[in-house]
């Protein structure tokens, strides 16, 4: 019988020929990700781990290479408590022989999973973080789990999953006018529009629970770059999805080649053409314009025109959603030679050290700093409001991150608007929410920007 991506991969991982939505399967995930919450997870099984020195000696179910630990949420430590937490995690990593440990400064866990080749096509990955769904961009079935589950997974190496129904979204690209230069012209979006506007528009359409417990498959996405797919898949959870996935194609392979992953190390999985879906949707990319998610829910999406002129105290460019070199280059193409408005802060939170290095090499960071931006350490930074860029009551932030919940940036009386890097860059110039199409890059900097 024809199968969806989710059915196929979960059948494979549970050793069955086929599985149906609603069934529960016992699976052995290829990887478990945890971050600054590792100590809290391991604390639940301290007694089980005892004084054993590694997973193998302890006959733990999870292999030492399967657990990936990344310190990213509050880095470098902002308080003694954070420092003690990090210290406890390093001790655990040493004691249990966790091979894939990435200390402070390597990057946000999800970007690290991708660029270190730890999330590969056809894999099943779980992480104790809700945006684990990002690796769907590379044809991975990846989803967030709670701490109890992560702890049990360390003990046994396996967990249970309910086979989700799937929603199929077909992306249509017509003859789309684009930025103009040959390189930039590859973008399937209209001028000034990005993948962030696409996913925000979809979430606005389906609602915050519109894909509850489902796997969202994106078809016809060949025109989207890997970075664009990462932005889209990252936000799958904001419509309730268990996973959000793209087919593996030439672009995926070339990306994996570029990070040194040999083609025989992964086996792509994709849906059959006549698989059954709970819902099907077609999106015309040429019909997507710049949008903004207003406080305090991600599905509160309106065209940018509707909120133009709303004053902004802080702009955030970065996070795992939009903190890659292509995002900084796009913002730099708009801000190059300009200054951010008085009374507005522009914070840069690179998703990883690698992406930061690329952005430095391309000159994007220099252009942004010249325009008045502040560069933060690679990591989650202001995205979760634990430190760095915390807002004051009555303040407003325009951010490229993925959540605008009340209190998300550390203050319940502040407001967060979500938008694309282009909209954030244009708005930083004016100090208020601005349609990015009013600040289109000059021909010279167009060459560097990519929608």
């Amino acid at each position, binding site marked *: 019988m024809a199968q969806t991506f989710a059915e196929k991969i979960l059948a494979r991982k549970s050793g069955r020929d086929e599985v149906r939505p*609603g*069934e*529960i399967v*016992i699976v052995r995930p290829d990887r478990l990700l945890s971050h600054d919450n590792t100590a809290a997870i391991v604390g*639940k*099984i301290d007694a*089980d781990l005892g004084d054993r020195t590694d997973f193998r000696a302890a*006959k733990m*179910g999870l292999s030492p290479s399967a657990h990936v630990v990344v310190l990213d949420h509050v880095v470098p430590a902002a308080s003694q408590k954070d420092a003690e937490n990090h210290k406890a995690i390093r001790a655990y990593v040493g004691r249990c022989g966790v091979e894939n440990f990435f200390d402070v400064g390597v990057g946000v866990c999800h970007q690290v999973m991708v660029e270190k080749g730890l999330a590969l096509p056809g894999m099943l990955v779980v992480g104790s973080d*809700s945006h684990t769904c990002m690796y769907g961009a590379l044809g991975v079935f990846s989803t967030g*789990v*709670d701490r*109890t*589950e992560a*702890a*049990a997974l360390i*003990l*046994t190496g396996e967990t*249970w999953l*309910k086979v989700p129904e799937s929603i199929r979204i077909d992306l249509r690209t017509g003859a789309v006018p684009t930025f103009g230069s040959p390189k930039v012209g590859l973008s399937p979006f209209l001028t000034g529009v990005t993948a962030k506007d696409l996913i925000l528009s979809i979430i606005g359409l389906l609602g915050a*629970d519109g894909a*509850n*417990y489902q796997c969202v498959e994106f078809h016809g996405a060949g025109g989207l770059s890997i970075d664009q797919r990462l932005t889209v898949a990252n936000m799958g959870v904001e419509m*309730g999805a*268990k996973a959000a996935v793209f087919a593996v194609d030439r672009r995926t392979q070339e990306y994996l080649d570029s990070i040194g992953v040999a083609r025989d190390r992964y086996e792509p999985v994709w849906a059959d053409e006549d698989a059954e879906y709970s819902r099907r949707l077609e999106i015309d990319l040429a019909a997507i314009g710049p949008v903004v998610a207003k406080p305090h829910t991600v599905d509160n999406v309106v065209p940018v025109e509707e909120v133009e002129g709303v004053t902004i105290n802080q702009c955030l460019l970065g996070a795992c959603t939009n903190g890659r070199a292509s995002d900084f280059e796009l913002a730099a193409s708009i801000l190059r030679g300009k200054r951010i408005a008085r009374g507005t802060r522009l914070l840069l939170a690179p998703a990883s050290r690698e992406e930061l290095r690329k952005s430095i090499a391309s000159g994007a960071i220099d252009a942004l700093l010249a325009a008045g931006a502040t560069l933060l350490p690679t990591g989650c930074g202001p995205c979760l409001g634990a430190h760095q860029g915390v807002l004051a009551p009555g303040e407003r932030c325009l951010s490229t991150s993925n959540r605008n919940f009340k209190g998300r940036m550390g203050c319940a009386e502040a407001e967060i608007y979500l938008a694309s890097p282009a909209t954030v860059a244009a708005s930083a110039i004016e100090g208020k929410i601005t349609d990015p199409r009013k600040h289109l890059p000059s021909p010279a900097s167009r060459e560097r920007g990519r929608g």
Partner: protein
Amino acid sequence: MTKIWRYGDDVNTDMLFPGKYTYSCSTAEQILPHLLEDLDPAFAAGVRPGDILLAGKNFGCGSSREQPALGLKAAGVEAVVAKSYSRIFYRAAINQGLLLVECPEAVEAYRDGDEVRLDAAAGTIAVGEREFSFPILPPEILAIRDAGGLLPYARAKLRSQS
């Protein structure tokens, strides 16, 4: 006799366990007095082991805090029977060993005073004179419940392997 606690649609995690206690209460003893505090003040004092909750759609929506599932389990609630569940609550409940039954027909059929009997292994629920079936939970999920939650289950499994 099994008491049936009946509620409507969209019972969220704040109604099940007020958010203001999220960081001060984490053990069963701390959670129990506040369970369903804002939804049904009589619940915490009146609930007895073996009782059943009957609810509408999207039960447990809202935050990912694990106290509601932990608390209902600790109170000895035999099962929640609802029309549907939010994804996060569904997983949290199973991991805490709380039985969830998804059976809209049974919820519709219930009339005050009806007796409700549940056979999780057979996948049947009797409401008064009528009987309904729901998808049988796989043995693995029933085993998680019988062990008292995912961690005790994992431990037992490890012991049996070594």
